[in-house]
């Protein structure tokens, strides 16, 4: 038998190109073909009118509801109230302050997310420690000649971001302490931490917010009054720190035992071991989990409207009640949904990307 090199042939035409793709993905077998047609029909009959309502038959410019005549979505409503959606009742002349705070934050996050930028650690520490202080003075004012803006004027997307960012930044150190405590050998420390974590994780955020707004004032000596926003922030931070602690515990457990043993064998003390060896590795593993809890928190901030704060959803609710614009609540809900969706979806994509990167990293090491 003589061996000769067989030519490489192109696959049969039914396998490739548009026809092959359709056959493989939409019409492989009778059941699938029927399913494709049925689902396709429903999608088209739902999507076409929706797209028409949102984009084609809609009104975009104007100053009052009289501009909305085409029968589609009335985006004029949103456009007229955009400032409120973004800044709440923050004085118009001072809008540059939340804008600046937002730009600094986005800038440093982009710095951290991009793969090739130097000094990530420094930027992260600045963002977690220095930035909240700067942002506080920027937003609240009363220093360097900035006029004071009381927190009851804060609102809209600005307030939503304040709640979420403070919630995550403040719960991080508390979460680390709780997670370390939960892993501790000291029975009292351990049970205190476990109780704390399980209580907050076991109750809905709304009862925590109720508690913060109704019970917190009772806990402190008379005359010590708290701002409503601060009370909400305390509630959110306590609640969030329990979830954060569980994420951090997950990260600590993922570090191989050998790392702890190696650090012990080198004669490092407990805190040296944790700060120099374990935490730097574990933090990397925790980032996807932290991002995921941040997404959950970001969505949950909308609950503050129940205790009377004006986050972006509460602003929308108030706008819907405006007698001049009644009947356009779908538009405002869609707009707010889009705002939340853009933030949450991009964060969840980023965390998935990180997880994938971590997984392959592990694979290579094994």
């Amino acid at each position, binding site marked *: 038998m003589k*061996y000769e*090199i*067989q*030519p*490489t*042939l*192109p*696959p049969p035409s039914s*396998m*490739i190109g548009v026809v092959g793709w359709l056959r493989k993905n939409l019409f492989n077998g009778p059941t699938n073909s029927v399913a494709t047609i049925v689902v396709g029909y429903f999608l088209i009959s739902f999507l076409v009118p929706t797209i028409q309502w949102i984009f084609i038959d809609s009104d975009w410019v104007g100053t009052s509801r009289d501009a909305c005549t085409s029968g589609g979505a009335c985006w004029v409503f949103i456009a007229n109230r955009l400032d409120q959606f973004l800044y709440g009742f923050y004085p118009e002349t001072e809008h540059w302050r939340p804008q600046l705070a937002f730009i600094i934050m986005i800038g440093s996050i982009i710095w951290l997310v991009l793969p090739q930028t130097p000094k990530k650690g420094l930027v992260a520490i600045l963002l977690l420690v220095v930035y909240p202080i700067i942002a506080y003075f920027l937003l609240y004012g009363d220093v360097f000649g900035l006029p004071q803006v009381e927190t009851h004027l804060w609102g809209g997307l600005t307030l939503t971001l304040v709640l979420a960012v403070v919630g995550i930044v403040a719960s991080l150190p508390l979460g680390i302490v709780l997670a370390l405590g939960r892993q501790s050998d000291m029975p009292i420390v351990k049970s205190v931490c476990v109780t704390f974590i399980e209580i907050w994780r076991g109750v809905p955020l709304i009862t925590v917010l109720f508690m913060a707004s109704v019970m917190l004032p009772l806990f402190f000596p008379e005359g010590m009054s708290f701002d409503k926003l601060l009370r909400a922030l305390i509630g959110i931070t306590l609640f969030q720190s329990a979830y954060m602690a569980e994420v951090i515990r997950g990260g600590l457990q993922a570090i191989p035992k050998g790392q702890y043993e190696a650090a012990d064998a080198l004669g490092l003390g407990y805190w040296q071991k944790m700060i120099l060896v374990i935490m730097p590795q574990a933090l990397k593993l925790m980032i996807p989990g932290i991002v995921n809890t941040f997404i959950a928190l970001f969505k949950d901030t909308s609950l503050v409207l129940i205790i009377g704060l004006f986050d972006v959803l509460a602003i929308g609710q108030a706008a819907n009640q405006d007698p001049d614009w009644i009947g356009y609540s779908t538009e405002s809900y869609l707009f707010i949904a889009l705002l939340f969706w853009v933030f949450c979806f991009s964060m969840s994509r980023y965390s998935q990307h990180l997880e994938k990167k971590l997984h392959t990293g592990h694979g290579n090491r094994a």
Partner: protein
Amino acid sequence: MNHSHATDKLMVELRDLNKWYGEFHVLKNINLEVKQGEKIVICGPSGSGKSTMIRCINHLEEHQKGDIIVNDIPLNEDIKNIEAIRKDVGMVFQHFNLFPHLTVLENCVLAPIWVKKMPRKEAEAQAMELLERVKIPDQALKYPGQLSGGQQQRVAIARSLCMNPDVMLFDEPTSALDPEMIKEVLDVMIELANEGMTMLCVTHEMGFAKTVADRVIFMDGGQIVEENEPHEFFNNPQHERTQLFLSQILQH
């Protein structure tokens, strides 16, 4: 020296077999005839299409051109034919693929009970007999996760044999095993060969090929490069590609 059990009946027949993964031509005009009782060892570098070829035989992979006939049943779109062929063809995988949620015994009786509609007692008796043949009857009530790799692979062989197959396909059965476990699996395979089972083995165990194979096939680039009886194949390889492969594999 091996004693051939081959009869004249054709068990597996591949004619002008072609297969593509997307645009990639993996199998090019494969022609192969396997007689009843014959033992074939297939070797070749990774990516040469050897696994794909035997996976086409029980339709784990779909082929696009050419004919496959197993035990006189043509492998075509007909689901009845595919099911009939799968009942006649047993397969052993590189990673064992035992069902982790079932005990060893349950792994063995699952298909006889649900596919062959065998009474449980009978199926269990037969399974115990086969587990004895692969020398692990005492592990019958354990879960796969409690066994070593070699033991798992022997269970996997017993599980296939429980369906009383006419042909056994082995897809690199020892390459996921630690060296000390390879022998226990090969011993079971050799015993099976001596009992006259028709076997197609993708393996790099050249010792096994020398002892039991009736024919050794070398594949490269999606086609059969060389096909010979073991003595000739190892001592007098015809093609340069085969010589190179053998020199690499026999070095260690």
